[in-house]
């Protein structure tokens, strides 16, 4: 991986952040905080590691991604649009009647989504099943599951955690499964530490038999390296603790529980996007692709 490739991924992550803000503003509801914390992880998965064919979303040798923290699906939609699963214009239909871009992931409505999630705690079990099924079918595909920190308070997660390192033994260990915790420290009501502290989270997963890798979930190079380490480790699924910042990239959303599940107003959206693009509050030259988006949101502001 050259420095140029990392720069390309940074550009994509930036563009996806802009699209997240844009689509949530059009939708008028949704979850910006967790979408912005998970987007760097998704960017690496979609644009540097996962095998898939956007025009053949059910290609049977594809890698699978289960976004168990389903409320952050706008981040996934932004990647899917960029990857060519559907036109970018569809992002503006998010949460609208008849749209395949449901408020939470819907496997049937949108090919490329692997499971309905958002009823928290269920995605890891499905991922274990997918990983085992792929092993039984003799496929080399990998399964990535992203869980939220508040989410792992759900009991079913620990049922799955207990089973995954053991299931399929001795011939079909699910070492094709990689789970990533988006550890942004905030859940709906407040900081995770104040609601129900998860610590010591690394020790917990280790005690359940998982190799654990800790990374900065916004460092694209670290994400890539951790995914490669996970893939290289035979015999066991791997758990990656990605330390992230909720609302990452937008100063007034960062580390603020208020932005767990609230859409920005058009005015806030313009401010957020200018920050993401590194522009001053007024003036400056947005990149060509972003100029129409800023104009569109500015027009909404005036309505």
């Amino acid at each position: 991986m050259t420095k140029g490739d990392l720069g390309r991924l940074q550009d994509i992550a930036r563009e996806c952040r802009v699209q997240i803000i844009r689509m949530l503003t059009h939708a008028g509801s949704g979850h910006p905080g967790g979408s912005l914390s998970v987007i760097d992880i998704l960017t690496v998965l979609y644009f540097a590691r996962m095998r898939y064919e956007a025009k053949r979303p059910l290609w049977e040798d594809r890698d699978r991604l289960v976004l168990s923290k389903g409320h952050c699906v706008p981040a996934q939609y932004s990647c899917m649009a960029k990857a060519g699963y559907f036109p970018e214009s569809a992002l503006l239909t998010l949460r609208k009647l008849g749209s395949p871009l449901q408020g939470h992931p819907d496997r049937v409505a949108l090919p490329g989504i692997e499971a309905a999630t958002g009823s928290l705690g269920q995605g890891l079990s499905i991922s274990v099943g997918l990983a085992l099924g792929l092993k039984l079918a003799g496929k080399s595909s990998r399964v990535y599951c992203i869980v939220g920190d508040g989410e792992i308070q759900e009991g079913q997660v620990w049922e799955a955690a207990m089973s995954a390192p053991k299931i399929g033994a001795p011939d079909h260990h699910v070492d094709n499964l990689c789970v990533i915790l988006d550890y942004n420290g905030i859940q709906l009501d407040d900081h995770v530490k104040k609601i129900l502290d998860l610590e010591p989270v690394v020790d917990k997963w280790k005690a359940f038999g998982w190799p654990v890798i800790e990374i900065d979930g916004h460092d694209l190079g670290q994400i890539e390296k951790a995914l490669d380490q996970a893939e290289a480790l035979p015999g066991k699924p791997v758990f990656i603790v990605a330390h992230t910042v909720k609302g990452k990239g937008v100063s007034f959303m960062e580390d603020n529980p208020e932005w767990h599940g609230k859409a920005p107003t058009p005015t806030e959206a313009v401010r957020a996007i200018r920050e993401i693009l590194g522009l001053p509050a007024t003036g400056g030259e947005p990149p060509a692709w972003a100029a129409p988006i800023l104009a569109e949101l500015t027009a909404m502001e005036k309505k």
Partner: protein
Amino acid sequence: MVAKASRAAFGEALIDLGAKDERIVTLDADLSKSTMTAKFGKTYPGRAFNLGIAESNMIGIAAGLALTGRVPFACSFACFLVGRFETIRVSVAYTQSPVKLVGTHVGVAIGEDGYTQMGLEDIACLRSLPNIPIVQPADEIETKQAIAWAVEHPGPVYLRLTRQSLEPVHREGFRFQFGRAEVLRPGTDVSILATGGTVWNALEAAKRLETEGIHAEVLNVATIKPLDEETLLRSAGKTGHVVTVEDHSVSGGLGGAVAELLSEVMPTPLRKLGVTGFGESGDQKGLYAKHGLDAAGIAASVRKFLAR
């Protein structure tokens, strides 16, 4: 043919079907000796997964397996399985993952273990989901054919099986038809719609009533969802009186489904027999007598119903 529990017939059918179909796998939550999949695991090592006492995870893993080409049978007592309703709702139903859910030990007929082990609300819960057919076979031959059907059905399925032995109500040569209710005994005065472990009792009740000049029509409603509306309405239209019989809560089960159908399409006097309140420990015979689900109880309810 001899009396056999539908769970036992299920276990045998799986071994037969599994020989031909590599896709079939079983998942259990530490009850494989009771759900009767244990022999499948011994026969086909590597195709049976015991997840320990963790039903939600078992259901989710089954959902993932089904999406990657396996035909997974996820098995437990009906109450423990359907008790994980939210996982079934999202990971199986809404995800449209073709998991075969198998709930055994249904109803008060399990007897001595008491209420906490009795599946009494499972039909009511699963009926509320739009895409999970509910099938409850009445004897061995029907069970085996229903399992074979479930393997080939492209979507999720719920199979409701008994702990207790079931007397045969079908002859050799019977052909299970998904979605069809079946007239086991024709009659003109009352339609008795029974399902699962109560079908034999309904037939026995009809014999008793016949001696009193009451000609009861007995239907085996093996497919509870979707209901065979045509057959049920034809029978109800003919007899003008409908009695439902099931080892399940009187709310939301077969009786509830039939009440919904009749009240909307063809209002017909209806009596729902089933379990009211919670179950309790006791012998099966005593419990069926208490809830009026044995032949004597069904016959008494029909008499009273027609005399009003």
